[in-house]
């Protein structure tokens, strides 16, 4: 507007003030966005500079051990993989079914509205509370911590994400496709599973992958459920090691090799999570549009 303003705009205090406030707001917008990008870069740079030092074959193939024993993170990595996969095995069917209910059956009914609301609240519920809840239900009555309890607590965190994406994706399926299926004489469940879900497939998969990314970095719920383990543990009935718990234990320790391992573990988790997010965003995003 500066160049095309009426001559003498400099003497107009109103125009000056408007220009100044616009400049100020624009500058602040740049500053705020830059600060966020700087924060991300700072985190990634810290992870790379600290984590690469401890990166070695031993870190991947040796289990955790006492300070100075050249331990690794292998049992924690395997434990994390077992628990996250189990959490999806438990959580994905429930989340998918709930999403199907909300999109295909619930509609605008009061019950569906309540489920939607509760699921949205659970979506950002403090994960430590989920951990305490599973402790009370699955750990305290049995008297011991277990990998299964860890998987269940992660599943509770995964379900709301899957519910949300499944419902949204099913709603994008055109009604004409449902009608075509019904016209061929297919029952409703066949229409939903074989036509709607197939059409919504990539979007639904996105939700499951995002849930995977979210739960694989969760620490707080595992503290009270699978507890962590210094040794190899493959039994879902026993305390199980996990990468976030290992990081939590090692990062606060005063042994240098433990802190180095904590950074290496942090590097694994963060780049794993970010890789999933990038694949989802670019892999599936492009396909859809």
């Amino acid at each position, binding site marked *: 507007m500066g160049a095309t303003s009426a001559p003498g705009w400099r003497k107009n205090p109103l125009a000056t003030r408007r220009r100044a406030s616009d400049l100020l*707001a624009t500058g602040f917008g740049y500053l705020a966005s830059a600060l966020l990008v700087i924060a991300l870069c700072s985190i990634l740079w810290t992870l790379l500079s600290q984590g690469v030092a401890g990166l070695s074959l031993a870190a991947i193939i040796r289990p955790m051990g006492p300070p100075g024993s050249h331990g690794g993170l292998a049992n924690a990595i395997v434990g994390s993989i077992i628990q996250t996969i189990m959490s999806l095995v438990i959580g994905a069917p429930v989340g998918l079914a709930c999403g199907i*209910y909300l999109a295909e059956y619930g509609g605008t009914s009061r019950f569906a509205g309540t489920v939607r609301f509760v699921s949205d609240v659970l979506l950002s519920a403090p994960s430590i509370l*989920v951990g305490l809840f599973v402790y009370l239900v699955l750990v305290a009555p049995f008297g011991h911590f277990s990998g299964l309890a860890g998987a269940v607590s992660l599943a509770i965190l995964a379900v709301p994400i899957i519910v949300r994406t499944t419902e949204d994706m099913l709603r994008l399926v055109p009604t004409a496709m449902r009608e075509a299926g019904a016209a061929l004489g297919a029952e409703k469940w066949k229409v939903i599973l074989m036509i709607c879900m197939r059409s919504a497939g990539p979007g639904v998969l996105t939700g499951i992958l995002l849930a995977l990314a*979210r739960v694989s970095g969760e620490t707080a719920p595992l503290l009270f459920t699978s507890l962590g383990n210094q040794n190899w543990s493959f039994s879902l009935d026993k305390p199980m090691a996990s990468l976030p718990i290992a990081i939590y234990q090692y990062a606060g320790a005063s042994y240098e090799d433990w802190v180095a391992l904590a950074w290496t573990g942090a590097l694994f988790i963060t780049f794993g999570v970010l890789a999933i997010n990038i694949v989802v965003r670019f892999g599936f995003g492009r396909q859809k549009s």
Partner: protein
Amino acid sequence: MFGGSLNSERQMTTVSSVAEPAPVMKATKPSFWQGDQFFRLVVLGCATLVLLVLGGLVIAMGVGGLQAFRVFGLDFVISNVWNPVTNQYGALAPLFGTIGSTLIAVAIALPLAFGSAFWLTAIAPAALAEAVGTAIQLLAAVPSIIFGMWGFFVVVPFMAQHLEPILHHSFAHTPGIRWLVHGAPFGTGLLTGGIVLAVMITPFITAVMRDVFLVVPPMLKESAYGLGATRWEVIRRVVVPWSRAGMIGSVVLGLGRALGETMAVTFVIGNANTIGWSLFEPRNTVASLVALEFPESPAGSLKLSALLALGFLLVLISFGTLSVARWFLREKS
């Protein structure tokens, strides 16, 4: 239960086959197990399960904390003594830390999120907006324990060596706020907790706020631009009034996340059950107190019950907040 309805289904089939002369109908009638009814029951059951999880969570915390509530009564909420040695537990200090760090976080995150959402929707060229938008989404996906480590190894030294001494020197004699900068600059404390939380919740708030800004009808914005309004004026006079409910919702959503955050805070808050004006002194939050003290609380002890009672208070605060957020976000869409 399934058996019962299965039987009644069979009975119905026989009855209808007697009543109806056409035998073809009987053949096409699907049995219960492969039919729609079964599928409907399954998905309905899963939807109910989600409700049960939330209900069970609230009830389990309440029941678990009952012992502590019985022993201490209202004192549990208004006492700031947390002493495992004498078995005296009060929730005031961690509640203070939780609410204090959350308020600091929101005070920092709100302008940052608003600024970057403004930049993303109104200022940035499309390609740059997409790149930065992706970066902000990635920042939101970083696990909270990583924020904790980053806070502990990067933000805490920065606070101790730079920001806190500067704040201390600048405001140590300013009446009114001198108490806020009182205390030794260790780096850990309420302010550091608030800053790390702010970095964590800003991407969430930005993402929601950007979505809210994007649904403002372009006609309204273009009319304002056509009248000669600046970008700031369009945001201030058109976009903000239109999306006020959504903006409040996005901020309350961030607030809800900050209230219950454990890992990011535990590393940097300092973990001391104290109350005071100073922003530099170590404090504690409900979530980090629970995470830290839980390993030393045997099953059935009063201490465990006190921790569960803290969990119950956190349930009330954070679920209340999140419900308010969802209500605001629901209204417009």
